């Protein structure tokens, strides 16, 4: 029921296709940021890793959310400093976020790529391991080097502390979890 309620926004008919690029100016910070990533190479690396480690068991079921969308959402989450819920909500309403996720057309339809549940983003994260994460960073660095933007000739190394955040248990979160499990 929760899922249907989440999607009811999208289930009421279709309309004309809108070009997302028409609504996101060229100088928009998110557009500029998104254009720096070698998305095709990153998505290829993720797909190869996932296909090897998590082979598809059955061809049945809903079509999966594109990896491009999930990766962009995860990166945007860190760039914009939001939570999973916030960034997934923004995907439905913010054209700049749609642009960053590689969605070039917007239409009121129930297409899977246009909405992502926070749980899906969590599942996507769980599939990324250290080797894959290193590969993604290496792809980004190699692309920047190929374009002549950065050079690895002289490097600086340092460390910094990263405190483990604690998840505070409140009545609201306990109630939420209990309702979810029911």
């Amino acid at each position: 029921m929760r899922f249907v309620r989440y999607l009811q926004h999208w289930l009421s008919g279709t309309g004309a296709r809108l070009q997302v690029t028409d609504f996101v100016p060229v100088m928009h910070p998110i557009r500029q940021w998104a254009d720096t990533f070698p998305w095709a190479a990153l998505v290829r690396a993720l797909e190869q890793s996932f296909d090897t480690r998590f082979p598809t068991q059955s061809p049945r079921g809903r079509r999966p959310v594109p990896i491009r969308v999930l990766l962009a959402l995860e990166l945007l989450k860190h760039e914009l400093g939001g939570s999973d819920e916030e960034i997934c909500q923004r995907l439905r309403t913010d054209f700049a976020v749609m642009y960053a996720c590689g969605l070039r057309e917007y239409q009121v339809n129930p297409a899977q790529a246009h909405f992502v549940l926070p749980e899906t983003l969590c599942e996507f994260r769980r599939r990324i391991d250290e080797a894959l994460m290193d590969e993604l960073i290496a792809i980004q660095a190699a692309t920047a080097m190929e374009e002549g933007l950065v050079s690895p000739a002289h490097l600086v190394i340092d460390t910094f502390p990263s405190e483990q955040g604690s998840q505070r248990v409140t009545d609201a979160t306990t109630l939420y979890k209990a309702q979810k499990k029911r």
Partner: protein
Amino acid sequence: MRGFGRSCRGHGQVFVKLVRQTEQQLLALGEPIPTFGLQAQERLAHTIPLSDAQHQRLSLALTTAMSNHEHIRKQSQRLTSGKKLSHFKVVNAYDPTIAPIVKGKSNCPAQFGRKPGIVSDPASGFLFANLVPQGNPSDPSYVLPLIDKVQSAIERVHTGPKRRIHSVAGELGINDPTLRQALHERGILTVGIPKTIAPIEVHPSAQDILDILNEAGLNRIRTPYQVHLACASGYSRPVVESHIASLLSRGAGQGRYKGLEGAVVQQGMTVMAHNGAVLVRIHHKQLSKRAQKFRRLLGLRSPKVNEINHQRN
């Protein structure tokens, strides 16, 4: 009793008698936990409605919790009787990979978490690699794995001239003779790693350059020009703090995902998001004058602003 962190964290006054009494009470209270754990395992095995995956996940979580409990019990008994620990200290029952961070903030209780390492370009702040190790290892142990990661990124570049690492700079903490030797063997200058607290010479004389090259055994491998740039890079080493500040502003200072795997993903995504912002700054030439000069000396081109939105993807 063992204290954590620096002396500036306080006088470290610990009420030994009170701690020992409390510890006895807590240990007595936790005495039946292993029995409860075994009972829980038995019940879990006979619970039918759960799927295999759920069974596996729950039994793994239970086993981890039980082993951690045993470890915490032992370390508590040793520490309160004034004995040193033979192995690592568990500071979080749910995640044994967390360790006290000695280099954390001053004037506050010791932080518990991880100590990620980064390797960056001093001119622009682009991060070539990061490393999130388990626990809190020494700073020199970060250098070679990070260099290996940068090397693997370099091997992915197929166009243009062959890229090489000429020098590495770092703080006094990574000053280690063995590490210097290993870097010299790879043809990397270590002039940017200080040996004392004195600042590194920005404009070394011809004799100094010759001495540096001879000491590293890189006389015919590295040029005096590269030594000049390495010295400038070492002198500008504190700029790395601004790169760290940029990561912290993106939430890298607090681990929000679970376990070491979660920390790796969080730090990695933060690094990629930061790199995206750095590339935007490079495209817009929003770099400091020193960074612009450094880029000119390295022969890096400035991109045309109009090309930023080309359809690469």
